[in-house]
C-alpha cells in the first residue's frame, strides 16, 4: 500500500508540482513578465503577459522541418532530453520548507543537471548540420565554461558557510541549506556572502542566455545560432525549457541566499492560524517564491536586457572569469575563515 501511495506522490511531484505543470505555467509566466518589463523599460507597450503561451501553442501548430543534412533522431530527441533534465532539476530545488526529492549532496546533482539542457541544445545544434548552428554551439560551449567556474565557487561558498553553521564541514544538501537559513536567517544578510550573491545574480543572465550574454543565440548575426534549423514543435520545447530555466535559476538563488524568508512565513502563519499552519504555509511559500522569482528576473534579466548591448564571446568569457569569479572567490575565502 505504501508503495502505491509513494508512487502516486512522486508521480504528482513529477507531473504537477513542482514538476511539469508548475514549471510550464510559472516558467512561461515569468518569461512573459520579463518581455513585458523589458518593453516597459524601453517605453513600449509590450506584448501581453501571456505571449509566451501563444508562441508555444503556435509553434506546436507549425510544420516541423527536419533538414536533409540532419541526424533525425538526435535532432528531434535533444529538445525533449533538455526539457526533462530541466524539470528534474526543478524537483531538486526546495520551496522553502517543502521539498520533493532530497539527497545528501543534491547541490552536486543540481550542478550536473544544469549542464544537461545546455548540452542538449549543443547536441541538437551539432546534429542539424547548419554552419550557423556550428558557430552558435561553439559559442554556447564557451558560455557554459565561462559560467560554470563562478557557479561552482558560489555553491562552494554557500556549502562552507552552512557547513560551519551546522558544524559538518561542507554541507552539500539544498534542503539543509534552506533549513539552516530558516533557523538562522538568510545567507544574504551575512557580509561574507554578499559577493557570492552578486556573483550569482550575474550568473543568472549568463546561464539563461539572456541579453548581454546571448552571443550563442545572436539572431541578428548568426540566424538564432543553435536554433537556426529548428521549427515547429521541437522549437516550442526549446522555448519552454528556456522559460523553465529562468524559473530554475531564480528559485535556486532563493534557495541559496533567501531561504530565511521561509522561516518568517512559518512564524507568521503559525501565529495567525495555528490549526491550518501546514496547508496555508505551503501555498504562501509558493506564492512568495514566485514573486521573488519575478523580482529576481526583473533585476537580473529584464533590466540588463533593456540597458545593455550584446557582448562578444571573448568579452563574455573574460567578464565571467575575472569579475564574477573574483566576487565568488572572495566569498569562498571569507567562508573558509569562518566569517
Amino acid at each position, binding site marked *: 500500500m505504501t508503495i502505491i501511495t509513494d508512487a502516486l506522490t512522486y508521480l504528482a511531484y513529477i507531473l504537477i508540482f513542482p514538476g511539469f505543470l508548475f514549471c510550464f505555467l510559472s516558467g512561461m509566466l515569468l518569461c512573459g513578465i520579463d*518581455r513585458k518589463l523589458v*518593453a516597459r523599460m*524601453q*517605453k*513600449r*507597450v*509590450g*506584448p*501581453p503577459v501571456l*505571449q509566451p*503561451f*501563444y*508562441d*508555444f*501553442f*503556435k509553434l*506546436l*501548430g*507549425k*510544420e*516541423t*522541418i527536419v533538414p536533409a543534412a540532419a541526424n533525425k533522431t538526435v535532432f528531434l530527441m535533444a529538445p525533449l532530453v533538455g526539457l526533462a533534465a530541466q524539470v528534474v532539476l526543478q524537483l531538486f530545488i526546495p520551496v522553502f520548507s517543502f521539498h520533493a526529492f532530497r539527497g545528501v549532496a543534491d547541490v552536486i546533482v543540481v550542478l550536473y543537471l544544469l549542464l544537461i539542457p545546455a548540452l542538449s541544445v549543443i547536441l541538437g545544434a551539432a546534429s542539424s548540420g547548419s554552419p*550557423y548552428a556550428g558557430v552558435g554551439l561553439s559559442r554556447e560551449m564557451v558560455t557554459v565554461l565561462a559560467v560554470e567556474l563562478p557557479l561552482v565557487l558560489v555553491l562552494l561558498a554557500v556549502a562552507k558557510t552552512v557547513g560551519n553553521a551546522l558544524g559538518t564541514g561542507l554541507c552539500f544538501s539544498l534542503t539543509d541549506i534552506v533549513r539552516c537559513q530558516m533557523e538562522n536567517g538568510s545567507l544574504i544578510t551575512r557580509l561574507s556572502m554578499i559577493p557570492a550573491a552578486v556573483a550569482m545574480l550575474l550568473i543568472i543572465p549568463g546561464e539563461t542566455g539572456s541579453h548581454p550574454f546571448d552571443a550563442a543565440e*545572436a*539572431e*541578428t548575426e*548568426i*540566424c*538564432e545560432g543553435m*536554433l*537556426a*534549423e*529548428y*521549427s*515547429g514543435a521541437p*522549437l516550442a520545447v526549446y522555448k519552454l525549457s528556456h522559460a523553465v530555466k529562468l524559473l530554475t535559476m531564480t528559485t535556486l538563488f532563493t534557495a541559496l541566499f533567501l531561504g530565511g524568508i521561509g522561516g518568517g512565513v512559518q512564524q507568521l502563519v503559525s501565529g495567525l492560524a495555528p490549526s491550518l499552519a501546514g496547508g496555508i504555509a505551503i501555498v504562501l511559500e509558493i506564492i512568495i517564491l514566485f514573486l521573488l522569482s519575478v523580482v529576481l528576473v526583473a533585476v537580473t534579466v529584464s533590466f540588463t536586457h533593456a540597458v545593455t548591448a550584446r557582448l562578444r564571446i571573448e568579452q563574455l568569457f573574460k567578464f565571467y572569469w575575472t569579475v564574477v569569479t573574483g566576487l565568488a572567490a572572495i566569498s569562498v575565502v571569507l567562508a573558509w575563515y569562518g566569517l
Partner: protein
Amino acid sequence: MFKQLITESMSKSPWLFHINAGSCNGCDIEIVAVLTPRYDAERLGFKLAGSPRQADIVLVTGPVTKQSLPRVLRAISQVPEPRVIVTMGSCPQSGNVFRGSYSVAGPLSKYVDVDVDIAGCAPKPEAVIDGLAKAMGILAEKRAAMYKKDGKKAPAEPVQEVIAEEAPAAQAEVPVEAAQEGGEQ
C-alpha cells in the same frame, strides 16, 4: 479544444522574417520604425525571427533583382506551413522606380502567391501594421484550412519549379514593359 487553442494562438504570435530583395533600404528602415516605442508592433506579438525556419510571415522588400530571386524563393520555401507572404513597398508589387531595369526580375507575384501587399514608397508604419494585422488573420485562416484538409501540401516543390521556368521569361518581358512605362514614373 487543443486544436482551437493552436488556431487562436496563430493569429496572436506572428514571427516575421524579413527578406531584402534589392530594396533601396527605405522600406527596411520603416520596418525598424514599426518596432520602435512609438509604434511598437511587439504589442501584437510580432517578433523578428532570425531564421526563416522559425517565421510565420515573410516580409519581402525591394524589386526582386535577378541576383536575389533564387535566394528569395529558397528562403520562402524554407518557411514552415502555414506561412503568409507579405510584400512591403511598391517595389515587389510593380518594380516601382526600378521597373524596366535589366537586373529586375519582379514583381514577386509572378513566382509565389502573395497574400498581402502593402503599398507605398516607403509605406507608413501605420500601413505596415495594418497590413501585418491582415496577415495575422490570413495566418489563422490558413491554419484552420490546413487542419480541415488534414494533409499538408508540399510547400517547397512548386516554388522551386517556377524558378526554372519563369526566370528566363521574365528576362524577355522586361524591356517591353519598360518601354511602355518609361514616361509614367
